[in-house]
């Protein structure tokens, strides 16, 4: 798996554990279905991998206790994760959002705009689409017709905001 954010490739601080007995003191990622057990096990930091067909509200009770939520993209063309990420941010989620699946570089700026911080792609994809292609994809379209999708200082500038200022 290749994990990268807007600055490039990065190591994954989270590990999957055989049994939750191994969790205490570690940064552990587990399936969202086991979130209660994971949190009870007392990891240093907790992360979950969630399918893309859950309701954002399902995450609500856990948002301030999850350092990372990874949303699975079963295929590049299944865009449900983009809306789910958007809703999680609207619910006030402040942790890391990861898009996990066979996305391609042209979707990287879209993922970031919708609230993701990083993407995790299978090795086979990374072999064809190395990190340089992902970073290059971020700078191709520098404008956007939407208003509140840019997060932070990076990302395309809103045409609407520019027009409002001029």
């Amino acid at each position, binding site marked *: 798996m290749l994990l990268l954010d807007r600055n490039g490739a990065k190591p994954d601080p989270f590990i999957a554990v055989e049994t939750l007995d191994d969790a205490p003191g570690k940064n552990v990622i587990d399936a969202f279905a086991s979130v209660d057990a994971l949190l009870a096990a007392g990891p240093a930091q907790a992360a979950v991998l969630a399918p893309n067909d859950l309701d954002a509200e399902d995450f609500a009770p856990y948002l301030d206790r999850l350092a990372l939520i990874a949303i699975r993209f079963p295929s590049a063309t299944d*865009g449900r994760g983009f809306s789910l990420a958007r809703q999680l941010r609207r619910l006030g989620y402040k942790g890391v959002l990861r898009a996990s699946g066979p996305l391609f570089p042209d979707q990287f700026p879209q993922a970031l705009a919708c609230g993701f911080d990083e993407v995790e792609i299978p090795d086979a994809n990374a072999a*064809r689409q190395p990190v340089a292609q992902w970073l290059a994809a971020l700078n191709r379209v520098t*404008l956007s*017709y939407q208003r509140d999708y840019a997060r932070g200082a990076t990302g395309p500038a809103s045409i609407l905001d520019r027009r409002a200022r001029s």
Partner: protein
Amino acid sequence: MYAYDELDRQIVRERVAQFASQVERRLDGSLTEEEFRPLRLKNGVYLQLHAYMLRVAIPYGGLSSRQLRQLALIAEKYDRGYGHFTTRTNIQFNWPKLREIPAILGLLADVDMHAIQTSGNCIRNTTTDCFAGAAFDEIEDPRPTAEWIRQWSTLHPEFDWLGRKFKIAVTATQQDRAVLRGHDVGVRIVRNAAGETGYRLYVGGGLGRTPMEGKLVRDFLPRAELLGYLEAILRVYNLEGRRDNKFKARIKILVHEIGLEAFRAQVEAEYSKVVAAAPAPDLREFERITASFDAPDFADLPEVSRKLEQAQAADPDLAQFVARNLFRHKKKGYVALTISLKSIGGAPGDATAEQMRAVADLAEQFSFDQVRVSYKQNLVLPHVRRDDVPEIFAVLKAQGLATPNVDLITDIICCPGLDYCALATARSIPLAQTLSRHFADPDKQKEIGELSIKISGCINACAHHHIANIGILGLEKSGGESYQITIGGDPGDQYALGELLGPGLPASAVPEAIDRVIGVYLDARRQGETFIETYRRLGVTPFKAAFKEIADAVA
């Protein structure tokens, strides 16, 4: 026309460069065909039966003469000298080479055009009434609303990977001339009791394999709330629409399966969250867009043109053209003039580069530089002085563009079918040509009156055959082409899906079958009744009986 600013230009340019990079990465193997396919489709590039095809967006059907000339240039330089206007009011080029498409997109960008989102599972070109801005009966010009939607939906980061395509139409008249109820979302501009202008929204219409009529989801939405509400609809669809079966992935299936009430409740719930999270919506952008549609500087003219009347008296061809191809304008002394792309025996919707240039010249000289594309695959000069009609007619006649058949039986809507389309199950153009010749006699056409024939080459229904008065669907049956006929469809206010008459027929039997159907109508019609009115009164039974004789004979 909406006037691009530098930001509109820049984003289109950047999109061209992005597509060029996608082509490069496809050719060097970074992108597999499976990955490239949705990317090229989002930029209008198909791989069709014989070659690539490029579909260029004509937002809400509006073109300037400069843009139309550029399309002519592209047709000549990169294609085979013609283009095909579609029922989504776009234009298709049938023979471009993949490595030349970035250059074509560059030429389009030069005239503020693009191919963005003309295909793929995203929000497509927003369409409207082809007489927008000219029609006598509109509440306001619907094009600023359509442009507002265009910009909001362009390169939307969240709604680019929907379960299926998403089509929006806007209209501002009582009479629906934009097939509102055949769209994923239909937007009708209305006034409420307090005199405020806002929107009435229909959702879940569509044709294809499972045709459905759009349902009223919001009776009145204040203008400022349109984009927020669309965002809520799209988000609910993106999250809840089916992903397991591409034939069940349109929003119409979601609305159908969970029911309108449940769907509306979900949208309203999502919308309330959208409202809570966003700053209060304002109309600044809408007003900026509206202002950029410079209103033509119409002259004060008398209602009647003596010049036109005299010319008509001297030229029966002109008189016939005037009777058929003019539409009432909101401004005295002006008309909207339809240029039929349905010459007898021609391929419906096709225009040569030379014809495009001729129309561009006419638009420049006589129609405030404006041309419109209609979903019926014709062109419109929206703002023509009655005085100028004879001169325009003469030019059109010389170009083979003066066919006086608007809304008559030879004004056939026809998709490319198996002569071009990779998805087709049968050809459609040759049958349209046969029927056009079969009914060529102007007196016969006049006798039959308004009647729509629409021919699709597969169940996708790009030619809207379900909502034709006479719809024809080309299928494959035991290794050959076979055509199913439906009747009684209506795209407008009395929206209706056609009824199947019986088993499919070979192409050779279709003209006679339609003769029989029309025979029933001509025998039974009352004074002044159109085909569809007679059909509504009689029901399908007598038509089925007449059809059966032909079907039995060929069975």
